[in-house]
């Protein structure tokens, strides 16, 4: 039995020995280097561009500008194709642009023998601009007279509204208290270790091969086809090992360009390998949100009404656009399903770098505001923060009124109880009463989350699995589910081993994906993979098992019910005796001259459910007021992710998520000049991504429920852990100091301003 076991990652040794091959390891000899010429203004239009001198530089192969690229605009978001035209992604991007929409926009591209020559050539390109005022703050962007960053858009990418439950206005009227709050989140960056890299070449007169660090090989294939107006089947996308993505590679960023370049250059191999600085400026980031929340609450602690108004900033191009605010907003109905709720959101263009998908897709922003507002409501009533949440959170059997589906598995309350016990909450609460004065104070905080296990019914949830029995009795598995470092290949192997009753070591998952041969799946995002692939794997493994047993019957003459598989052997169910091993069976199926065939199974399956998951963060902090610093003394995340397939990997996901959550809470922020749109800190020195020295020991725990809509009872876990650390820490700061820090990050520079405003500075010094 492999499910539930802490088996070793299938790729652990390949990675630690350095043998795992990433995109850069696979470059063909003589691959040309392409480098973008990026705008030095945030908003404007290129008047003139002169590339003559650069073209004459020895070693420069070609230079293309906005004049040379196809005119059809395309969407870059890594979503499945939508058959409903209403639901299509916004098509607002060209390969290169004359209209400048952020500082760093791509105007031209140099192809050269190496990066040194390419960089020299870039310096020789002369550009003159017509400049417009950069539109950065929502106020300016929404001004009636503001220039339209994309013609015809009114600077609004999307807008929607929904309500569920009782009449919201009535409930506010009836509420004992109505509490209002305004919250802001910062633009943050994924900081995956491997920057964006892609290369392309042609191996035939009309076939383009793209090797790319992507979360979504099959979607890349479609979008490259669209961007270049060529047939999808002429494009082949190969995904080797990936050094992390966190959503930034759920977007088609470099692939259409490298495909375009190889097409133009007679099929020569061309790579784009972004530097860290470019990656942080010119790929994607997390949408900054401005959120207004109103909460209606009764004296007994029941929250009865909620209204939320959201402005999300997508930056220069739509990318995932309004889907972020929309997905984020939808999680309320599974966290607090019994409140009357109204939600309104708009997504705006702005002359700043482009936002896209990032771990937890809108929820870090929405749940932050929601859990701060919930804390404020609890404090208004004077009920303990945990008790208050226990009164209001979802329970198994609640209806999710937005999706119209019953919540079939829900461990939210158990998560809160486990976390509270771990933290020794009640005792510490009392003890920390002593630390509410003076320069150094202590506090406790909590926050809850709900998240989904995929994107259905907004998008299709399709997964494919192919399993083949090898001659030696082991199996090879191919899935479309994309391993990007999160460990999905390992749990696929565990699932197959479980259902086929094979030793885990006998299951090999084909790591590299190739759209020519890999089964179809839309890729790694939405924490969907383990959940969605489980349904395809279960069915394929069951199918292969039946075929294996059928062949065993052919060989032995026994009836179907008499045989089973156990630990990789065919056994007699009555005696438990081994009838034959898998190799014997397999060799017979391959090489017996009359009976059998290669035993394989292939299933493509659409999941038409979407299980909600739950979790929470508990945190214990010290606030050093004179130094404007927050220190985490203890932190734990507890999650209900259904059945835990691999406790070690699951723990790893939680730790990584908490790490990122702490970064977003305390230090991470892309700093942009509000007048010019200049990005100050697109590097890892000035972008304060935490180091291991900044992160305390992280604790985690699980509440295991069984989710009936999933193949193995599992639900999602990849993204949720990142969501709750920021609101939990904010609530702990409030507990410690009495100050509401309603914007992220709670960095020293921001705490300085807010502590000053609240009179905490100067008077208090150690």
């Amino acid at each position: 039995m492999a499910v539930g076991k802490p088996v070793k990652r299938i790729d652990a040794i390949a990675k630690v020995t350095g043998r795992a091959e990433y995109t850069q390891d696979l470059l063909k000899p003589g691959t040309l280097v392409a480098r973008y010429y990026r705008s030095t203004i945030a908003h404007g239009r290129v008047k003139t561009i002169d590339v003559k001198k650069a073209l004459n530089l020895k070693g420069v192969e070609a230079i293309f500008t906005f004049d040379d690229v196809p005119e059809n605009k395309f969407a870059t978001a890594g979503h499945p194709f939508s058959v409903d035209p209403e639901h299509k992604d916004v098509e607002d991007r060209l390969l290169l642009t004359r209209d400048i929409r952020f500082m760093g926009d791509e105007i031209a591209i140099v192809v050269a023998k190496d990066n040194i020559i390419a960089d020299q050539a870039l310096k020789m390109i002369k550009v003159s601009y017509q400049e417009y005022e950069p539109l950065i703050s929502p106020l300016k962007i929404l001004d009636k007279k503001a220039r339209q960053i994309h013609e015809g858009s009114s600077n609004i990418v999307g807008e929607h509204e929904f309500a569920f439950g009782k009449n919201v206005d009535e409930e506010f009227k009836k509420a004992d208290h109505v509490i209002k709050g305004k919250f802001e989140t910062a633009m943050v960056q994924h900081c995956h270790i491997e920057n964006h890299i892609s290369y392309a070449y042609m191996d035939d007169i009309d076939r383009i091969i793209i090797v790319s660090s992507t979360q979504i090989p099959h979607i890349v294939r479609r979008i490259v086809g669209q961007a270049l107006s060529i047939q999808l089947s002429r494009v082949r996308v190969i995904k080797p090992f990936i050094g992390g993505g966190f959503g930034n590679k759920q977007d088609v960023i470099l692939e259409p360009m490298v495909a375009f370049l190889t097409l133009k250059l007679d099929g020569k191999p061309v790579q784009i390998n972004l530097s860290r600085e470019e990656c942080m400026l010119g790929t994607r980031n997390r949408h900054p949100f401005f959120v207004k929340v109103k909460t209606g609450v009764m004296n007994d602690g029941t929250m009865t009404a909620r209204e939320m108004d959201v402005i999300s900033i997508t930056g220069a191009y739509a990318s995932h656009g309004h889907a972020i605010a929309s997905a984020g907003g939808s999680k309320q109905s599974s966290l607090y399903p019994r409140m009357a709720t109204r939600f309104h959101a708009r997504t705006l263009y702005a002359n700043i770098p482009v936002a896209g998908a990032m771990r937890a897709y809108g929820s870090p922003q929405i749940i932050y505001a929601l859990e701060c507002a919930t804390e404020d409501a609890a404090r208004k009533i004077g009920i303990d923060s945990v008790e208050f949440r226990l009164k209001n959170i979802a329970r198994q059997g609640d209806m999710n009124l937005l999706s119209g589906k019953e919540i079939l598995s829900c461990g939210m309350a158990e998560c809160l109880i486990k976390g509270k016990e771990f933290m020794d909450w009640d005792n510490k609460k009392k003890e920390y009463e002593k630390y509410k004065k003076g320069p150094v104070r202590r506090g406790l905080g909590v926050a809850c989350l709900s998240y989904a296990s995929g994107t259905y019914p907004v998008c299709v949830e399709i997964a494919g699995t192919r399993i083949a029995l090898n001659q030696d009795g082991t199996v090879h598995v191919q899935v479309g589910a994309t391993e990007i470092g999160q460990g999905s290949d390992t749990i696929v192997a565990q699932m197959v081993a479980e259902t086929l009753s094979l030793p885990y070591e006998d299951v090999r998952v084909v790591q590299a994906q190739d759209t020519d041969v890999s089964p179809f799946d839309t890729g790694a995002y939405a924490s969907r993979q383990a959940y969605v692939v489980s349904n395809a794997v279960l069915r394929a493994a069951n199918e292969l098992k039946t075929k294996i047993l059928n062949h065993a019957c052919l060989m032995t003459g026994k009836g179907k019910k008499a045989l089973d598989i156990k630990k990789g052997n065919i056994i007699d169910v009555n005696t438990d005796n081994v009838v034959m091993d898998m190799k014997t069976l397999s060799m017979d199926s391959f090489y017996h001259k009359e009976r059998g065939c290669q035993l394989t199974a292939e299933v493509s399956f659409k999941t038409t459910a979407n299980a909600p998951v739950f979790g929470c963060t508990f945190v214990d902090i010290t606030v050093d007021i004179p130094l404007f610093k927050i220190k985490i003394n203890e932190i734990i995340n507890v999650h209900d992710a259904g059945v835990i397939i691999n406790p070690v990997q699951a723990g790893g996901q939680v730790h990584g998520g908490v790490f990122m959550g702490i970064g977003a809470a305390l230090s991470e922020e892309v700093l942009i000049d509000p007048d010019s749109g200049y990005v100050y800190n697109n590097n890892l020195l000035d972008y304060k991504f935490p180091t291991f020295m900044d992160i305390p020991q992280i604790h985690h725990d699980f509440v295991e429920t069984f989710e009936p809509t999933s193949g193995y009872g599992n639900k999602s876990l990849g993204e949720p852990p990142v969501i709750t650390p920021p609101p939990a820490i904010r609530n702990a700061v409030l507990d410690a100091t009495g100050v509401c820090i309603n914007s992220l990050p709670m960095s020293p520079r921001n705490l300085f301003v807010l502590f000053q405003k609240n009179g905490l500075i100067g008077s208090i010094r150690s």
Partner: protein
Amino acid sequence: MFDLKKHVKARSIDEAIALLIENPGARLIAGGTDILIKLRHGKQGFSELVDIHDLPQLRFIKLDENNDILIGSGAVFNDIIESGIIQTHIPMLKDAAQSVGGPQIRNVATIGGNICNGVTSADSASSLFALDAVLEIRGRKTKRNIPVSDFYFGPGRVDLKKGEILTNIRISQKNYKGSSGFYYKYAMRNAMDIATIGCAVSLKTKNHVLEDYRIAFGVAGPVPMRCKITEETMRNKKVSRKLLQDISQAVEKDVNPRTSWRATKEFRMNIIKELCVRATKEALKRAGEEI
């Protein structure tokens, strides 16, 4: 791929000096942790390098016959952290070394490079200022000694002439014997970060009175600096909580922090006024004083 035009390895101090004179466009590279960043950014003037990395003549930490501490310019921060001499006599410099970058950086970055790079945030600088360190600089036929406080002309500009090399740093016995010190680095991260403010305090007490008090800051001005007015005012004062408050008041007049996009002047000033208290407290603790 870096745009490196020339790289020559020197096998001795003399050869390094000769190579510098032979290649007027060249610069010294020790650990390379400042140089290579500039080279990567395509900055002019860093593409020809004379390599003194790991030169044994420059890599030492020792006591001389006068019990002065001599630190070779090629000593890396890990050498300083692990040195018994430093641990025993100037733990403050160990604090500073330990606060630099991360383990990989501390394995290659040299104290000489830290000083010669000329930036105000260099973590070893404030301690060397507080200790009145003297730099030995050698040229083709010259050798001169200058106090570290005279070495800095301005941001990134130090008193090194063509063909000159910093060979060692001297901390004379009178400057460390009987003193206790502490270096407090304030940065946005606990590792891999440059100081927002660095504060080094070195002091001597006798009968609970400050016999000697020295306080130096990094990033409180364009170059590292001592707070002379504060130091003079505090000498011979009794150790007390009031003293700490007085120090916090006094430093304000000595320092000159700037607003940059990284932090405002007000922010830095608040940190300065707090760090001097905390660093002094820790130094007093090391001196066995209680407040």
